[in-house]
């Protein structure tokens, strides 16, 4: 077996204990938070002690915590994330219904942000034009500091209410109920604003990381050597600077993908995008332990896998780290 394959297998196996530990931590942290799901389901209009008791029994909340955790592990190994307290259906189903919309939104935004952020950094980094550099630096600070829900509302007011170019929210035109290609076009039409909002907030991260990495590589001694021996600047930049300078961007891209499962919650809420982030916040506020644990489990797996994939891609792009 090649050392590269062994490297991948070793890294994959290390994910399992990590995820199990994360589940236990999540489990106890969630139960530490004040609030009782049965009481929340029973409501504040006419709370009833009998109803709360019946719900606690139904959901096994009256059992000791360690026993509850044991049962949860048992279910996980059977591929069952349990039963949602609020929605009364399986957590697997609830996540499956929402995960598509979230991935569509966050992955498209991450790809756009990665591509544009890196491209701008590369263009600005090559030509030492101070003005462009300053403009993009300031812009990147502005967008990076902007709260996503605020930018989202500005986008709606600007592009939906003022220019009437895009719908405010949702994923479908419910009045028209399109089929086939028209439906795909309709979804893309609805996707545009939330995707742009997310991308605008993520572009500065990619821009700044790549930009500073270009600066750093430019100062490396081998670049000075290449310049000294008279290699054309263009060639140095393309062949030696860029290859090294893009590496940190790949790390950020991988992490962004890992966090994307629930990381866009605020944007999803403002644009009423039917994704996982909203499902998660709802589960937090209503103390739906099983649903929350299920979402955290999927998130943990995604982040671990994303980090693994990043390392693998890294190993491809940068052979130096493969044999360490």
């Amino acid at each position: 077996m090649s050392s590269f394959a062994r490297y991948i297998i070793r890294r994959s196996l290390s994910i399992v204990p990590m995820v199990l530990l994360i589940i236990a931590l999540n489990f106890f942290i969630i139960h530490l938070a004040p609030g009782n799901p049965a009481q929340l389901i029973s409501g504040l209009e006419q709370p009833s002690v009998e109803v709360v008791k019946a719900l606690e029994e139904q959901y096994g909340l009256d059992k000791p915590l360690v026993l509850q955790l044991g049962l949860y592990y048992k279910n996980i190994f059977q591929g069952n994330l349990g039963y949602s307290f609020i929605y009364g259906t399986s957590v697997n189903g609830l996540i499956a219904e929402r995960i598509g919309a979230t991935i569509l939104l966050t992955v498209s935004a991450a790809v756009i942000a990665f591509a544009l952020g890196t491209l701008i950094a590369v263009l600005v980094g090559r030509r030492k034009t101070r003005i462009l550099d300053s403009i993009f630096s300031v812009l990147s600070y502005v967008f990076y500091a902007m709260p996503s829900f605020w930018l989202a509302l500005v986008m709606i007011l600007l592009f939906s209410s003022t220019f009437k170019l895009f719908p405010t929210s949702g994923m479908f035109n419910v009045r028209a109920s399109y089929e086939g290609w028209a439906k795909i076009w309709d979804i893309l039409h609805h996707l545009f604003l939330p995707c742009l909002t997310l991308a605008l907030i993520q572009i500065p991260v990619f821009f700044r990381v790549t930009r500073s990495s270009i600066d750093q590589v430019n100062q490396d001694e081998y670049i000075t050597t290449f310049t000294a021996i008279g290699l054309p600047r263009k060639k140095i930049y393309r062949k030696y600077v860029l290859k090294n300078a893009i590496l940190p961007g790949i790390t950020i891209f991988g992490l962004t993908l890992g966090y994307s499962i629930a990381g866009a919650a605020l944007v999803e809420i403002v644009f009423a995008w039917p994704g996982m982030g909203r499902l998660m916040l709802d589960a937090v506020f209503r103390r739906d332990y099983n649903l929350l644990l299920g979402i955290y489990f999927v998130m943990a797996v995604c982040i671990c896998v994303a980090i693994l994939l990043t390392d693998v891609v890294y190993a491809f792009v940068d052979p130096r780290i493969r044999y360490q």
Partner: protein
Amino acid sequence: MRKLFVFLLLSTCFFAAFALAAQTLVVAYMGDPIWFNPCAKTDDYGAAINRNIFDQLVAQDVNYDLVPQLATSWEVSEDGKEYTFYLRKGVKWHDGEPFTSRDVKYTLESIVTNKGSAYNNVAMITEVVCPDDYTAVVKLQDPYAPFIPFLAWYGTQIMPAHLYEGTDWNDNPANQKPVGTGPFKFVEWVKGDHVTLTKNEEYWGEGPYVDRLIFKIIPDPNTALQAFLNGEADIDQNRPGFNTLSILKMNPEVNVVINPSPSRYYLGFNLTDPARPTTNLKVRQAISCAINKQAIVDKVLGGFGGIGEYFYTPAIPWAVDTNVKAALYDPAKADKLLDEAGYTRGNDGWRFALDLLYFQGADWTDMAAVIKENLEKVGIKVNLGEYEIATWIEKVLNAHNYDIALLNGFQGPDPANLTMRVATGGSLNIMGYSNEVVDWNLKEAAKVSDIELRKPYYYAAQAQLAADAPFVPLAEVSYIYIFKTYVEGMDIENPGKIGTGSYALTKLNF
């Protein structure tokens, strides 16, 4: 010429599309329902949708008066322990099965045995007897005067026995694809995006007039308002903050209609711990005087609703004693009362400090800010504690770990609702208030059915509440309807005909 032709063709298409769209009523809506089992769990977001899919025996209209739905009439026995309902004939479930007394028996008995959301209101039912298909006799353990008003409230929609009988009602496929008797049939629920209903051609009552009714889920009220203004929705049921309503009222294309509701904002005192100043009556009276309720109505509630004057909601006029009033705004008197109570100002100007706990949300935050300013003027330092609902319940209701707390809530459809808020051990008695006079009067009032006979008991309870001041009524809640002017036949325009939240009579008249 050719250009003109194209223009005409395009505009025809446009109007044709418009005519098609006119059949669909879109409601901007706050959130996803839990599911479509109308009786199993308290479901704030499912309630309004379920009212269009299901019917009750009897419903409430917008004025909280009774409207017969599946029961055409009913009788109460002499001893008040037997209610006989005469059911509507020829009603069909959405799957074609006939509606009978068996459905009534199944629904009411299941709420009791499965501890449904309306359990408190129907727990006194011992059994439901069905002498024939169109008569249901409900037997109660003890006479319970407010039985019918509570039956007309929430969590009592009649469910199809032919689908649920013999199954676990928490795990029935009909919870995801409901079958009702209401004006609209279920089509689809795209989670997080929308719920689509279609016209029930065989509905027993008048209507429905629109072909499709869509609840479009938009959780952010600001987005919902923009979607509504841009024509993506015809009705905005996700009310924006009160501060935007005054601007919205000036929009000629929008109707903003206000309906008083038996829900009210109030401030509760923690009476459970003698170490807290709030257990001192004079302190409570002083705080009642120190709060400027008119400022809360004007600054926080956008002028809607009105101040809380009485010790029960004026929206149930027969039960409220308008001669028993809460203290008026008088900071000088508050200062005097606090001095008398022995809490003189220290060198730093403060008498003592209180923790004020309230829910998240713009309206609550603003209200807490006004109260903090009012109380600090009379030397009471206020520490603000803003919590999401789960934590608030834990701290205020379960642990009584607070000094003063804000809440609101529905106090109808009958004054028997006061029991859970102020009677000893009441499930929503955050104050921990306990008074024999109040307990006795509330208990006796529920035993007789004649309103005139019940009134004196409720009046006596209110007089005792005014004397003890366990809470300060702050403001009355108004329910706000926001819809486009082309939307006609809303429930607010049809009291006595349809239940609250029903879109059976709604039409689009462009």
